[in-house]
């Protein structure tokens, strides 16, 4: 404790690592302001604001994120609830299923889905179809967040207490379990947002114009606008993660990673 701790090398090491992380952001910021030659300004941003396609793609990604959250919760909350309350013996199965998306890379999954589902058009033909794989992508993180949250609750007591008051199952889940899981749910939701907003694999292969696909598209025509969008994307991730960390304050701030590599 009182022996002098030599933090010179650790300090330097962290400094170098920190530079590695900061420089690309600063360079991207500078690049986004470049207007050719020695001129710098907000031209790239001004041009972007007037692109309807930007707002369309951003809107689509946000909508998909929200839908993914809802579908994910509807599918997972009852299952994880029942898992924790009554069928603990199924836990190995759940643990296995929740690592599967890790073993089956997104690009492999999209290959399988395109061969398996070729119609009908109302299903695979609209951007809503993306919600299907996105739920799978978010599955490990949503499952983990819900499971940790429900373990922390005394589900058995909560359930017995509400049942002795005459509540049915739906009432129980919607009125008792979900409100008590707010922290876990918000954490899972924000993580899902981070994943969906950056997701590129499925959208690109299935040819839907999400935010990430739009950034790629812009990148082929205007490098400075792409840089500006990159910063915007970083900002969105930053906000989502700050949200996760803040909601995690009550329990254990579980920061996980999903993301679109």
């Amino acid at each position, binding site marked *: 404790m009182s022996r002098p*701790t030599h*933090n010179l090398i*650790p300090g330097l*090491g*962290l400094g170098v*690592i920190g530079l590695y*992380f900061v420089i690309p952001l600063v*360079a*991207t910021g*500078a*690049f*986004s302001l470049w207007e050719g030659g020695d001129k710098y300004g907000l031209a790239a941003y001004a041009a972007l604001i007037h692109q309807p396609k930007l707002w369309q793609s951003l809107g689509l990604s946000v909508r998909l994120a929200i839908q993914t959250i809802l579908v994910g919760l509807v*599918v*997972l909350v*009852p*299952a994880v609830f*029942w898992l924790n309350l*009554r069928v603990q013996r*199924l836990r190995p199965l759940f643990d296995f*299923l929740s690592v*599967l998306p*890790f*073993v*089956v*890379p997104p*690009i*492999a*999954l999209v*290959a*399988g*889905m395109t*061969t*398996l*589902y070729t119609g009908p058009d109302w299903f695979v033909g609209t951007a809503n179809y993306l919600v*299907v*794989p996105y739920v*799978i992508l978010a*599955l490990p993180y949503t499952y983990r967040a819900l499971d940790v949250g429900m373990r922390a609750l005394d589900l058995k007591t909560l359930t*017995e207490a509400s*049942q002795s008051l005459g509540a*049915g199952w739906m009432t129980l889940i919607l009125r008792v379990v979900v409100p008590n899981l707010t922290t876990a749910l918000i954490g899972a939701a924000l993580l899902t947002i981070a994943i969906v907003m*950056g997701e590129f*694999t499925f959208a*690109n*292969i299935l040819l839907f114009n999400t935010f*990430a696909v739009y950034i*790629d598209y812009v990148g082929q025509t205007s*490098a400075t606008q*792409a840089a500006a969008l*990159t910063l915007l*994307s*970083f900002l969105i*991730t930053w906000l989502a993660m700050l949200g996760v*960390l803040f909601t995690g304050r009550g329990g254990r701030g579980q920061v*996980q*990673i*999903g*993301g*679109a*590599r």
Partner: protein
Amino acid sequence: MSLRPVKSAGPLARSGGLFTLVFMAPFLLYVTAFLILPTLMLLATAFLGKHGPTLHYVASLGQGQTVVAFRNSIELSALAALVGLVVGGLAAYFVLRPGMPRGLRSLVTTFGAVAANFAGVPLAFAFIATLGSLGMITVWFKDIGVNLYGMGFTLYSMPGLVLVYAYFQVPLMIIVITPALEALRREWREAAENLGASTWDYWRHVGLPILLPSLLSAYILLFGNAFSAYATPYALTSGIVALVPVEISNVLSGNVMVSQQTGAALALGMIVVMVVVMGIYALIARRVGRWVKR
């Protein structure tokens, strides 16, 4: 007739298989339909030709271009995982050292969470803006007389990809290894010192062996993370470095003249690599974790 214990008559007691079905079915059906069946479909597609079962497509994985793509993908992932493991591990260790400024930890945690999720197309663009042939740093170096690209560096290469991958690998490593580092007890360090061990002795015989299971699973996580990366190499190299995910996307998008079956075989190959890696992990983990309480 046998006497059975009287159960309480509440709905809880009556909820047997039927309730389990109602609660579990949506989830299990969903996972089956959209994760397991597509995977099995790959298997079927890869092994079925127009005229029944065939090994033709799987055998085509042995062709030159495909072998190169798999080798590149595995090498890149192994290397990017190693870089993440070492740099991220050291960074986490440095941050946790006593005497580090207050607030550094939460800064690193928050930034790490962001950076670990900041990947794909935007990440590729950030690096192109930084170290691309016209990137800010490249230009800046040129101005002071250092021509990075003239010296053989290029962002659109294996080393370049490793450099970019580190941006999400290092923070991921920091996030997953920090709890394991925190679990190293001060008593172990002091007991070792007290018994005459040098810092090196401590890490060699105590610290690293205790961390080994965590390091191993972190490495697997980082490997899989890099192996399945698609958006980053797609936006960065546009095919200059052959990688399996990009090859698959070329097949699926119809950019190359090969059959869907070949795409399925490629995808299946990726899954096999992951399964093999996880299998090796399970074997080693059992060996190095003999002492772990189960």
